[in-house]
């Protein structure tokens, strides 16, 4: 009798655990919660959390547990340990996060060895998705905006000459390469390339901009990391009177990151950017997203392209969980994501089945003053943009 009760209890326990296992999906998140990237980590983190909150019904009956790890810095080493421990200690089913490209690059061998789906929510160096077969990117590559803008600058803005200023680290060089290739391919000429210091501390941009101003280009293409760099760029552009000198400041949307835009004020007016997202995009999903964001995080808070990377990344993860009914096999998960389509706040997006990178719209926007705030007015749109680096197999994206 006693034996049977014990056996029944054990069986019941075993059932509950296996049921619980089926219910719970563990997602290991690595983000720089402290240090210079803390602000970005918060945006991506909030994007993920907001998706889960708004779409609680889509998640049920499964439970998604986020296990968050601080990777502190772009150094790679901390990210490596974090990812390794998420895999070996926490036994996560899916990996997510990666603000910084070097961290994604450093983690690649571990992701490959760990054989888990890994969703990149920000890191933008083009070739990263080539470095592990389990990487899927829901953010962007530097080539998306850079390449599109090169063409747009020549065709839509009628620019003949350009000076490129970039932060001297891989995304900056990527951006330069992407812009230059398409701008010169469309008949323009890049007359100067200015590396503007490293990504660590915001430099005083005055000397670099002075140099650009002296060259008198039609457009000044600037890539700097979003955040403080961008704010300083816009200030310096205005303060040096480059607009009056007839030089248009253009760049990927990093320079008009939504979280910084209003603080830039009038100085930002006239900036022309190419990007896949800004909070002023006019589509129902985005309206809902921005409204929910403000409700959740305060009226002055605003989502931005980093937030949407986290949001869409979580949407992809939920899609995987639903498709696989909570039992996450990595190959199946990758299969489920290949060609996955989603109505994102940034418009329709999908995952390229070949490169596992995102396919999305790029919007050419101009910052204007509207109702006492800086508003990003869409003045052009390119549908279904793929990462041109991998499409054309250029440089580091070429298969080895």
């Amino acid at each position, binding site marked *: 009798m006693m034996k049977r009760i014990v056996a029944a209890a054990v069986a019941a326990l075993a059932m509950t655990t296996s049921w619980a296992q089926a219910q719970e999906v563990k997602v290991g998140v690595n983000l720089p919660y402290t240090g210079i990237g803390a602000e970005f980590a918060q945006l991506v983190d909030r994007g993920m959390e907001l998706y889960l909150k708004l779409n609680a019904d889509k998640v049920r009956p499964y439970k998604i547990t986020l296990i968050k790890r601080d990777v502190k810095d772009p150094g790679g080493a901390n990210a490596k340990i974090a990812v390794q421990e998420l895999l070996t200690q926490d036994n996560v089913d899916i990996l997510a996060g990666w603000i910084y490209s070097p961290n994604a690059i450093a983690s690649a061998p571990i992701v490959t060895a760990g054989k888990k789906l890994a969703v990149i929510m920000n890191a933008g160096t083009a070739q990263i998705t080539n470095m592990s077969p389990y990487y899927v990117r829901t953010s962007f590559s530097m080539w998306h905006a850079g390449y599109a803008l090169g063409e747009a600058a020549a065709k839509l803005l009628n620019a003949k000459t350009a000076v490129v200023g970039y932060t001297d680290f891989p995304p900056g060089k990527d951006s330069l390469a992407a812009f230059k290739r398409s701008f010169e391919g469309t008949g323009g000429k890049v007359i100067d390339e200015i590396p503007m210091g490293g990504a660590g501390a915001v430099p005083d941009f005055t*000397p670099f901009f002075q140099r650009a101003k002296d060259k008198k280009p039609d457009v000044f293409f600037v890539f700097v990391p979003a955040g403080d760099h961008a704010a300083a760029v816009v200030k310096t552009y205005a303060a040096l009177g480059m607009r009056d000198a007839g030089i248009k400041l253009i760049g990927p949307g990093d320079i008009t990151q939504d979280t910084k835009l209003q603080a830039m004020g009038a100085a930002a007016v006239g900036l022309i950017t190419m990007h896949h997202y800004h909070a002023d995009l006019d589509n129902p999903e985005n309206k809902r997203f921005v409204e929910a964001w403000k409700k959740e995080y305060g009226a002055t808070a605003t989502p931005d392209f980093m937030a949407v990377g986290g949001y869409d990344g979580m949407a992809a993860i939920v899609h995987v969980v639903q498709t696989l009914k909570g039992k996450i096999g990595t190959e199946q998960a990758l299969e489920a994501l290949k060609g996955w389509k989603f109505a994102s706040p940034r418009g329709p997006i999908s995952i390229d089945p070949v490169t596992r990178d995102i396919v999305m719209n790029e919007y050419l926007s101009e910052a204007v003053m509207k109702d006492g705030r800086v508003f990003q007015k869409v003045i052009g749109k390119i549908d279904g943009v793929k990462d041109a680096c991998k499409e054309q197999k250029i440089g580091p994206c070429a298969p080895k």
Partner: protein
Amino acid sequence: MIFGIDIASMLLGGVAAGMVLFIVSVGLSVTMGLMGFVNLAHGGFAMLGGYAIALAMKHWGLGFVPALVFGFVVTAAASAMLERLLYARLYRASELDQVLFTIGLVFMMIASVTLLIGPENQPLALPTMLQGQINLGITQYRTYSVVLIVVGIVIVGGLWLGFERTQIGAQIRAAVDNRRMAESLGINIARLFTITFAFGSGMAALGGGLGAEFLGLDPQYALKYLVYFLIVVAVGGLGRVTGVFYAALLIGVLDFVLKKYVPQGGTAFIYALTILLLLWRPQGLFGAKAT
């Protein structure tokens, strides 16, 4: 003519950057020279002061100048308290303990600001009249840079007068040169330290606020520019107001010129330059010869 404009714009840009370096670093130089205290938390005071200024403008609608005064006073008062309570215990400790203590303090400052206010950059909007361009006759230039240069000159002049002409200035000079002698002359060293420390931190706060236009303002400010401040202090010579001033201008202008003409070199030049300068004159360009 073109050449002249070029030179003028370079000088203006470089000197303005140098002024910010000077305003922040001067306090560090004097406290390090006077107390022999390796205060790595100095950048933290600049950061806290910058925040006090930015937040006072944002939430209380204070004007730029009143906010700067407010930032100076608040930071000076807070640092005076810290100096009495904690720093004073470590004056006789080894350099290493001082480094450890002040790094710990910086960590706490950064973490506190991140927790209380957030990790993001704190915008500091300049008054409209300081924005834009100003016509200087031979060239147009950024108004704020010109203003900074004027402010910097006023400050260095004031400091020089204060150092050379006031009782407390004379005491500080005496104590920098020979602390034991100063003590035997009946100078109240403890009080002198507190005043100097508070004043130096207040200056850092001013620098944090005035320089936010160029350097931004976020919790990491406390560490990310520290190397630059230390370079200025080392090159200028410990405890020398005019030395720090010239060093800041030198570094500011050279950095500017090199960045403009050889941007590919990154910051390598400034490090190489510092190494050469310090090997040539280990006590700093303007420092007293070590005894």
